[in-house]
């Protein structure tokens, strides 16, 4: 049964669609489109579609990278930096970047997904190198900390919250907080500080970006056995405001409520971005197009070796003239033309759940399963405004969050360019927390542009009553399998721990191998897989 629009709003926003029947018919923007990833070819492959290339449609190459998202492009970047140029990157979609992709319009570029990085700590050298290439990191201090140029750091005012009918500074709902609320917030911060300062016997931190460098001490891995909400309860904290803040943070970074997010992941959000106890969070780096800026740079480095609109249908480890090779069979989405690459190594930089579907004999050889890998879906909307809504109270920020909304609020694309007046583009985010959409996922995936536009506007109307008169265009991107979901037990589980081990000449790189979806994790796995491949090529060369 399809949902009525009113029911859809009720399901997605968790509020009865009050008054939607009263007064004039709700006004939708004059233009807009609903975009999404291409699932059709994926479903055909799942159903056995395996076109084979003719003999002259094969090429030999050192490395094939499967997937042109952040991890695949990072692997390519690392290979190119090491002087290995004989590779191709195969990407199903018409544009690269995965969930870090961006869009463009005459006014400003804007993000379609991931949109910031905290300034990396000195340990994260590869990422610092990338940011140096971009010019974002201008220099390093004596202790290796990156100095970021001013225009790439998030401009103040950074974030605000619509709470109790007005916009207030920051994300903590401070209006009317009791001394008990504030005391719990202070104790929470002390507890985070304790984790920031925590070191294991080998001197490793509890939480790091990338997560690969973090401690695997039992005191830390134990945190993955229960949810973040459970952890808060264990501390005895009852403040609704604190619970909201933590829940928002989990939804913001992982797309899931605190009840369904591992306490390890929840604490990672707060503790991995601080240099030392008592320090401020690392400042945020952002661009008008979000992490699309990083993707553009990486794509430029890869150049024509990035093959877009090409679906990988099969990955076959085999031998040729006594050499172990991997055959990668692809089909062009448009022309349906099949082509193959024979590679000395493959970097599989697609989501892990696709590995058994695409890699011949994967399960038999490795004995690995992937059913624990679960992914969240998202809606992202870009709203093109002819002017900004009138504001009282705290002014428009980069990040604007509506309290007790199931959306994550919106970021402002023109913020970093210093524009404070006139037309702008807002990017609005909505994660499907399983709890919200249980039983109606299919209907949600069938919702039309008009249905979803109504959801976006109804949400924003709470804080901006005149929003409908200002939006000239509203585009929506529906992301399926967008973000790995760090449910309790997954991070320390066997499936995730083993997933990054190579399968013969096939190496793995994707953010889902970390159990949390961050550009930094994708980038780290891409670099690591490239290093594994470089080492094996060198061994063979020698």
């Amino acid at each position, binding site marked *: 049964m399809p949902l009525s629009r009113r029911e859809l709003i009720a399901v997605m926003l968790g509020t009865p669609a009050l*008054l939607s029947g009263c007064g004039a018919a709700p006004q939708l923007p004059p233009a807009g489109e609903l975009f999404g990833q291409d699932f059709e070819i994926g479903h055909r492959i799942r159903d056995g579609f395996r076109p084979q290339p003719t003999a002259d449609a094969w090429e030999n190459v050192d490395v094939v990278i499967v997937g042109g998202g952040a991890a695949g492009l990072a692997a390519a970047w690392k290979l190119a930096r090491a002087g290995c140029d004989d590779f191709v990157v195969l990407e199903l979609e018409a544009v690269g970047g995965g969930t870090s992709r961006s869009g463009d319009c005459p006014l400003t570029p804007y993000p379609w997904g991931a949109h910031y990085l905290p300034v990396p700590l000195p340990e994260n050298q590869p990422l610092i190198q990338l940011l140096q290439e971009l010019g974002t990191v201008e220099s390093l201090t004596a202790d290796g900390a990156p100095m970021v140029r*001013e*225009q790439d*750091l*998030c*401009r*103040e*005012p*950074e974030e605000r919250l619509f709470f*109790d*009918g*007005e916009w207030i500074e920051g994300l903590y709902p401070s*209006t*009317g907080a009791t001394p008990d609320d504030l005391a719990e917030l202070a104790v929470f911060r002390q507890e985070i500080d304790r984790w920031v300062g925590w070191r294991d016997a080998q001197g490793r931190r509890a939480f790091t970006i990338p997560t690969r460098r973090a401690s695997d001490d039992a005191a830390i891995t134990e945190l993955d056995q229960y949810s973040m909400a459970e952890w808060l309860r264990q501390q005895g904290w009852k403040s609704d405001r604190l619970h909201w803040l933590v829940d928002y943070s989990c939804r913001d970074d992982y797309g899931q409520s605190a009840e369904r997010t591992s306490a390890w992941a929840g604490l990672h959000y707060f503790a991995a971005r601080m240099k030392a106890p008592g320090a401020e969070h690392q*400042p945020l780096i952002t661009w008008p197009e979000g992490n699309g800026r990083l993707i553009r740079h990486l794509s430029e480095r890869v150049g024509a070796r990035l093959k877009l609109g090409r679906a990988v249908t099969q990955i076959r480890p085999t031998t040729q003239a006594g050499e172990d090779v991997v055959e990668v069979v692809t089909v062009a989405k448009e022309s349906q033309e099949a082509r193959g690459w024979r590679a000395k190594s493959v970097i599989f930089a697609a989501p892990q759940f696709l590995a058994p579907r695409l890699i011949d004999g994967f399960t038999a050889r490795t004995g690995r399963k992937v059913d624990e890998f679960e992914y969240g879906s998202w809606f992202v909307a870009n709203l093109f405004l002819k*002017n900004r809504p009138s504001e009282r109270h705290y*002014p428009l920020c980069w990040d604007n969050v509506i309290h007790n909304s199931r959306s994550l609020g919106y970021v402002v694309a023109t913020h970093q*360019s*210093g*524009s*404070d*007046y006139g037309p702008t583009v807002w990017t609005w985010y909505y994660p499907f927390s399983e709890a919200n959409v249980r039983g109606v996922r299919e209907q949600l995936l069938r919702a039309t542009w008009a249905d979803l536009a109504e959801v976006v506007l109804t949400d924003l109307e709470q804080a901006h*009553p*005149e929003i409908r008169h200002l939006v000239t265009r509203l585009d929506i991107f529906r992301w399926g399998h967008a973000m790995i979901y760090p449910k309790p037990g997954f991070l320390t589980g066997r499936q995730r721990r083993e997933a990054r081990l190579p399968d013969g000449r096939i190496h793995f790189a994707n953010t889902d191998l970390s159990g949390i979806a961050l550009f930094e994790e994708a980038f780290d796995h891409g670099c690591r897989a490239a290093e594994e491949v470089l080492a094996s090529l060198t061994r063979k060369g020698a």
Partner: protein
Amino acid sequence: MSRDFRRGSDTMSAGSMNRAPFVLLYLNVLVIATCGLVYELLAGTLASYLLGDSVTQFSLVIGLYLSAMGAGAWVSRFVLDRVVARCFIEVELGVALLGGFSAPLLFLAFARVDLFGAVLYGLVFAIGLLVGLELPLLMRILKEHLDFEDLVSRVLTFDYIGALFASLLFPMLLVPRLGLVRTSLLCGFLNAAVGLWGTSLLRPLLNKRGLNGLRGRACLIMGLLFAAFLKADRLTELAEEGVLGQAIIHAETTPYQRLVLTTNTNGFQLYLNGHLQFNSTDEYRYHEALVHPALSPLKSRQHVLVLGGGDGLAVREILRYSSVKTVTLVDLDPGMTTLADRFPPLAELSRSALKDPRVTVINEDAFVWIGRDSGQRFDAVVIDFPDPGTFAIGKLYTTRFYRMLRERLQPDALVSVQCTSPLVAPRSFWCIVGTMEAAGYQVRPYHAAVPSFGEWGYVLASLGPLPEQLTLLPDVASQLRFLTEDVLNGLFDLPPDLKRVDAEINQLNNQALVQYYDQEWGAWK
């Protein structure tokens, strides 16, 4: 429901009341109830708007209002039966007057009265008392004609429906479309209309004597409210005059700011969003001190950039130099740069500087403009932005802004910057100085006394070495009222009470200056 409705549309028996459909009487109840709640919402909104702390203000206003209504209901028992109808009409007219004018009255009072709280809560109590009288009196009038059960249930039903109307209309229609002042006036008008209509509906219950007087008063009140509704903008101005303490001679709201010109015996004054920009009597001190240190010492001053300064007064000073070939002025607000067209005294004061053929006006946010590379470089730059009271202005005082400005400078160009008061806001002042140093400029801070502003601060800056001794061109010096060469060089002597204090560098990602400015001027006021 339908049965109720039919019964409700029965007409009343003739006798002590004129014939009228019950429905219309219930409409009265509806109007009374709607207006009653709107006054309460208005007072709560205004209180939280003007005094802040919405939780406290709403609680206080609602509590007081409800208790006043209770008091009104209690008082109603002392009204004698024979005057109950007249009393009801008098109450309606009282509500119309007090409630209707409540919003404009409170705005004006906030500007002009010290004990604003007393006025606010007094008014809330008075309106509540009168509104509390309305329904008990009406029910006493109606009780002759209905069973008690019917009476109570119907009146209460419409009372609650009215409350629902008010609570929906107020946020969704009234405030967004009409604003607080007009909403209040409109409700007053409706109450007065109910009163006026009552004079005919309850005619048999009224003493003939004084009936016309009652009607006359009702019409007068409706007329007053209607006139005020038409003149609501003027009321807002009056409230501003109360805040500014001077008569307003011109006011307009642009998409960027509110421009208000006031006058007093000494001249006229320009306020942007309530902040004084200049006073025509002493602005020459401010503008001479802003412009001439940057222009006079230059060997070449063909191309000058002015950032802000949309009033044209800095440009007037720049145009005193015959060697200046072009002046480019970048100011956000076209309403500001064309103000002289609509306000002739400003054209006279600025000598229509912005109309000079050498001058090009660009209406754009200077931050966005300067980030775009035009390739043009300037010999001198005069920066006359408003004080850094908001983030949108604070960004124009950051290292990022000053670094982008470097790309627009000739190697030996001079830059002067207005930097708020070093006496009132020392950390703000020295924050700007330090920020320019961090952006790679040589700086010399200086100050001038401008009576309307007090002790004012500036910075003279350059990418190269700054002149130790500043000179004034004789043909320019002869036109000035404030500066001589000695006075000019004396501006750079900072007295001990303006000595340097520690301050952070102002960057886009900390906006330290806006916080300093807020603290320092907040403490001063």
